[in-house]
């Protein structure tokens, strides 16, 4: 139990940061006193971020691990140097942060807080929990491509999100394996399938696959759907405006079922990290994953060998110009204590200077297109190229659709599909029935 602040007494910001609002502390029902202290910590949650002086701005962050925390601190220190405004960072570990976000935003949140682009951000805007920031975009918008602007804009045309960095999803492979066997990155689905068959005859598992966490399979679905029916259809489907039991989605599942024999078998019992090991050990040829896969390649020699290609084209009419690249950035609470300071901080965070400072420490890719790329490694540069040339950027299923739909419907249903790929009709109609009950009726 880390809550040392007495109930009723507002905690200092550093206490807020240290105890992570105290909410992650397991509530012990045996020890009453601890329980009461826990309630004190709950009270402390709503107190965090509420004491902001005229020369301060508070930021809610999920950067508790060393690297992201250092990176964020460096950015905020730079801002303080330039503006003379103190930044209070109140950090909560990412899981707790995401689990508590609804109650956090309904309490007394920090003026500026870290969040995600896509529906997951728009949802808060639609519920009146965050404010628009068109003025911020007016001054720094030229630093972002249209795809980023679109990803930061609510349905009513208001900008509600400021991107800081992103990472792309792609098909990863080891260059040495491709060179040794004379493989080349495939451009379209026929080449891709042919490559899979070549790998199988060479004794390789074509596509590494670990699905027990539930989300990796979402990435595969997103890409198949976007490549078959285009970005707009995918977005409409995620928004609940297209049918899950229609021809289009059934065709996606059918193609996926045809591709499953090229995937690592028994994926539902394997974590994504174990699947990554099979790519690392050269037992698998390819892996559909996010750039964070490189964290599994700890040996510099292996890391140097890792490469990726864009998910191949399926329909030449549609092409392969949409890229899945989840963007992390900032939003502003609906009634900031000090709107002027919050807006100025966000304007600074939208500059290339802020992004450059961040990515120098945390090896992400800066969202601002003028980010200094001199600190980038090979994969970061390649990722930046891939995303800069993308016409559309999707955010990943659990960010592009309603969180309740992603977590309680799609996650179990995609697993059900993988366990029983023959039951496409049953699964698609089940998804649709549940979508009807979750999405507001049009």
């Amino acid at each position, binding site marked *: 139990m880390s809550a040392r602040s007495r109930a009723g007494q507002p905690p200092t910001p550093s206490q807020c940061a240290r105890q992570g609002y105290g909410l992650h502390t397991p509530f012990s*029902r045996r020890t*009453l006193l601890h*329980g009461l202290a826990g309630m004190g910590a709950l009270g402390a949650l709503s107190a965090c971020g509420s004491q902001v002086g005229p020369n301060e701005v508070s930021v809610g962050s999920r950067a508790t691990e060393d690297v992201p925390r250092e990176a964020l601190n460096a950015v905020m220190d730079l801002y303080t140097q330039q503006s003379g405004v103190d930044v209070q960072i109140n950090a909560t570990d990412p899981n707790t942060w*995401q*689990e508590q*976000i*609804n*109650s956090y*935003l*309904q309490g007394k949140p920090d003026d500026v807080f870290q969040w995600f682009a896509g529906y*997951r951000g728009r*949802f808060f805007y639609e*519920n*009146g*929990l965050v404010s628009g920031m068109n003025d911020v975009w007016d001054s720094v918008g030229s630093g972002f491509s249209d795809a980023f602007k679109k990803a930061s804009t609510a349905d009513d045309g208001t900008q509600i999100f400021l991107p800081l960095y992103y990472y792309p999803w792609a098909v990863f492979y080891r260059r040495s394996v491709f060179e040794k066997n004379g493989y080349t990155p495939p451009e379209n689905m026929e080449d891709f399938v042919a490559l899979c068959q070549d790998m199988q005859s060479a004794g390789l598992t074509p596509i590494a696959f670990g*699905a*027990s*966490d*539930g989300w990796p399979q979402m990435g595969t679905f997103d890409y198949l759907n976007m490549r078959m029916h285009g970005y707009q259809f995918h977005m409409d489907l995620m928004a609940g405006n297209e049918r899950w039991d229609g021809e289009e989605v059934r065709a996606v599942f059918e193609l996926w079922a045809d591709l499953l024999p090229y995937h690592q*078998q*028994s*994926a*539902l*019992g*394997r*974590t994504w990290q*174990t699947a990554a*090991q*099979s790519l690392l050990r050269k037992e698998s040829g390819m892996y559909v994953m996010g750039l964070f896969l490189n964290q599994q390649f700890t040996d510099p020699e292996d890391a140097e060998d890792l490469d990726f290609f864009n998910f191949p084209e399926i329909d030449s009419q549609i092409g392969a110009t949409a890229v899945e690249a989840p963007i992390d950035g900032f939003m502003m609470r609906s009634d900031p204590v000090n709107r002027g300071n919050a807006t100025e901080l966000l304007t600074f965070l939208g500059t290339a200077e802020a992004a450059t400072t961040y990515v120098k420490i945390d090896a992400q890719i800066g969202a601002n297109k003028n980010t200094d790329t001199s600190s980038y490694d090979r994969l970061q540069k390649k990722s930046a190229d891939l995303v800069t040339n993308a016409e559309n950027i999707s955010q990943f299923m659990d960010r592009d659709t309603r*969180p*309740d739909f*992603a*977590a*309680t419907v799609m*996650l*179990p*249903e995609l*697993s*059900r599909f993988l*366990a029983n790929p023959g039951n496409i009709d049953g699964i698609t109609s*089940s998804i649709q*029935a*549940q979508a009807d*009950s*979750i999405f507001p009726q049009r």
Partner: protein
Amino acid sequence: MATTSQPGEHTGELDREHREGQDSSGSASSPNGKLQLLSGKDRTVLTLMVAVPAVLVIGLVWIPALISVMLSFTKWNGIGPISEIQWIGLQNYADLVTIYPPFVPAITNNLLWLAVFFLIATPLGIFMATLLDREVRGTRLYQSALYLPVVLSLALIGFIWQLIYSRDQGLLNAMLGLDGSNRIDWLGNADINIYAVLVAASWRHVGYIMLLYLAGLKGIDPALREAASMDGAGEVRTFFSVILPAMQPINVVVLVITVIEGLRAFDIVYVINKGTNGLELLSTLVVSNVIGEASRVGFGSAIATILLIISLVFIVVYMISIYREDATE
């Protein structure tokens, strides 16, 4: 989940203390006689001792539980004023049984969990305790070995057994000498993974029950055993006809704990795959629907209500048996 199982456990402990208290003080003074001997200060203390826990239990357990039941008739995303809550009657319950595929497996798995604990894990724990009570050589070593899993959290046990069950790198497949496509996907195959998990959960539960029961057995008067063997009763007969009845208070505690452990199962499947693909449990469904941004508060509350009803069945059965015993005493 934990909240719904609390009343049962508390009653269990209170009841045990209550009866132990009676045993030690004997039946010389009637409860009424005792009360008159109390000073005003004693009465204040007693009132506080009853009132404070009662307020806490009502405030932290029963009121939230009732609010949950009320929310289960609504559609609400947890955001905005209470006036925005839509009342939709039994729609959530209808959706649960008609269009929510994880629901039926969750109920079945919860009941299976209870059944395995009742019929296999708990008897095994009692059996181990009886064996270890015989002062076999190295009994302390066995005791610590069996008790070790109990000090580990179920989440940690989930991680440990993932290493054992992993299809590609797992200990079990390696020990069975399975290779290539013959390897068994212990945690990914929805037909078998619940049993694999139950083995892991039982591994912990056996140790827990063993320790509780062993403590009880130590308190049994050796004269009882001697008398039984004088009368020519064998080991088995002695256990069932003499020891087991003499252990009645411990038996009740063990049963109550078995129910609690069975109903609060959550962590171990949640770390494995968040309770999907064959490992659905009511508790994981509640969490995935209510916690986090996925705020289907009404729908999740409907699942929680069903879990509450299942818990209540056991609590009611337990209360009835307790009151019946009290009446006969």
